[in-house]
């Protein structure tokens, strides 16, 4: 309904453009109400009524975004809260249209903006998994074929035929994730799915994205888990106030992002450093690094912390 199909050349996933995703001068504006929604009571107060009618102002969530994502690229999107990351993803997914500009998507696309979107508490996990797979863009045949594998991967066992209201939140997520990794479009849009779940869960996500790389899937990923971006993104863009501030190599862009964050907020800086240290330790365990090697990895963080402490004590 909300997308026009431009005819593709005969090939099944007809590659017609060098870019999987192309944005030209894309802007997105929302209209903010001055105060609250208008009610009859407001109409009786002329001053409030006047403010209501005239006080509507546009809010620019995305401002003139130009972006080209080649086929097969894994693109990370980072930025502070309210910088337009989710708006961008929703525009890319065709969920909300750009106010101006053009979005062009070349290939089948699927969006994972939420695990288990539309799960119904009263029906079984099996049935919910099937419907969720259809909502995620799978064909009926694909969904039916994938169902045994989805159920197996979720590890829910006999619970799969129980109504989902009996599930724990962990079971809920496991089923949602299990469906999500069976959705294999040419272009995959992912929002913060990595942020949920425990370490083992995140590791599974991580492995899934690595396998997507081998299948030449284009992945656009919004996340706060910046350490994972360093590991497997080809490119990272940073949004700020609806504009692309930095675009390029993951390590460089993330470095800039950390600078922006710490300029804004020393608490954020500390939190980030702690997160980075945790991730580095995890990596050290995974790659079997020695204590010396780990210490070396942590050195820049330690230096940063000392610098901050000095700055704070000097204040």
């Amino acid at each position, binding site marked *: 309904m909300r*997308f026009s*199909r431009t005819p*593709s050349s005969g090939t099944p996933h007809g590659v*017609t453009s060098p870019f999987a995703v192309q944005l030209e001068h*894309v802007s997105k504006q929302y209209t903010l109400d001055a105060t609250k929604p208008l009610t009859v009571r407001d109409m009786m107060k002329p001053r409030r009524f006047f403010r209501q009618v005239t006080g509507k102002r546009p809010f620019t969530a995305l401002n003139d975004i130009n972006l080209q994502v080649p086929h097969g690229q894994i693109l990370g999107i980072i930025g502070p809260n309210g910088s337009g990351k989710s708006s961008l993803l929703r525009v890319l997914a065709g969920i909300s249209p750009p106010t*101006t*500009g053009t979005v062009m*998507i070349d290939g*089948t696309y699927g969006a994972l903006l939420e695990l288990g979107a539309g799960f119904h508490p009263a029906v079984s996990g099996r049935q919910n998994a099937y419907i969720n797979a259809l909502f995620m*863009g799978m064909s009926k045949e694909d969904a039916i074929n994938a169902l045994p594998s989805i159920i197996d991967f979720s590890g829910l066992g006999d619970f799969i035929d129980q109504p989902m209201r009996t599930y724990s939140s962990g079971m809920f997520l496991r089923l949602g994730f299990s469906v999500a990794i069976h959705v294999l479009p040419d272009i995959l849009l992912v929002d913060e799915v990595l942020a949920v779940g425990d370490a083992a869960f995140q590791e599974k996500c991580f492995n899934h994205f690595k396998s997507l790389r081998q299948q030449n899937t284009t992945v656009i990923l919004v996340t706060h888990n910046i350490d994972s971006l360093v590991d497997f993104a080809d490119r990272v863009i940073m949004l700020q106030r609806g504009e692309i501030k930095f675009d390029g190599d993951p390590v460089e862009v993330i470095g800039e992002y950390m600078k922006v964050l710490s300029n804004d907020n020393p608490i954020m800086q500390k939190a980030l450093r702690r997160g980075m240290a945790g991730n580095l330790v995890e990596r050290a365990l995974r790659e079997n690094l020695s204590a010396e090697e780990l210490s070396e990895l942590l050195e820049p963080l330690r230096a940063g912390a000392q610098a901050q402490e000095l700055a704070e004590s000097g204040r």
Partner: protein
Amino acid sequence: MATTTAAPGRFAATAAPSSSAWDLLVAITMRDVRVKYSGAFLSYFWWIARPLLLGIVLYFAMGQVLDVGIDNHGAFLLSALFPWFWFQGTVFSSSGAFLGNAGLIKKVQFPRIILPLSVVVGGTIEFFVTLPILIGILLFTGVNPHWEWLIGIPILVALQFALLCGLAIGIATLTVYVRDLTPALNSLLTLLFYLTPIIYPMSRVPDEYQWILKLNPIAPLIEAWRQLLMFGEAPNVDMWPSVLFTIASLAIGIYALRALGRNMADAL
């Protein structure tokens, strides 16, 4: 690939998600039909219990107490109540078709039209299942079977289905922007119940008030149901207001969704 920079914004994709809207419609309709009375002890019995209970109350109050003097009063009431319940149940549920699925609409891209349509299809399935029971009751009360049922019922079902599609799409869309519609519908449907020849026959309406019922586009439809089921009178040209209203509601409903549905995810 065409590279036009157009305002207003444009979204173009060379391939849509491979799932078909039809499969999704079937899946969520069947789910909602099963879920509606799941866990209820009487379960699907409620489908016939609701019109039947109201029928019994009206039969007692109008027939026995007020003694309105209508032949075969039970069959008279039920032949109109069953189609009416289909109508009002669907119209009322449709106002929540988008509003109640805000989370889905904000997070998943799919043809939104299937949400109101699934409400209509679900209601139609309910009516289809209860129809043989209604006919059984009618035959039991002494109504003769008519061969006109074979053509009349499909025609009326098709007309009411189309009417409900138009209304459901329009109401579901408008409710997103005008939240007052949900409580308003509640009152409107009660009003409409009394302005439709359900508890009284069209012929009993005094001439000076006939125009009120003529303005009600549902009246000819319900009247046609009763004439068909009780007397085997096939739908005829008197139905034109309902047909016209059906076409108008489809046009307006689809237009509303096209015009307003674009930004629905932002408005919810």
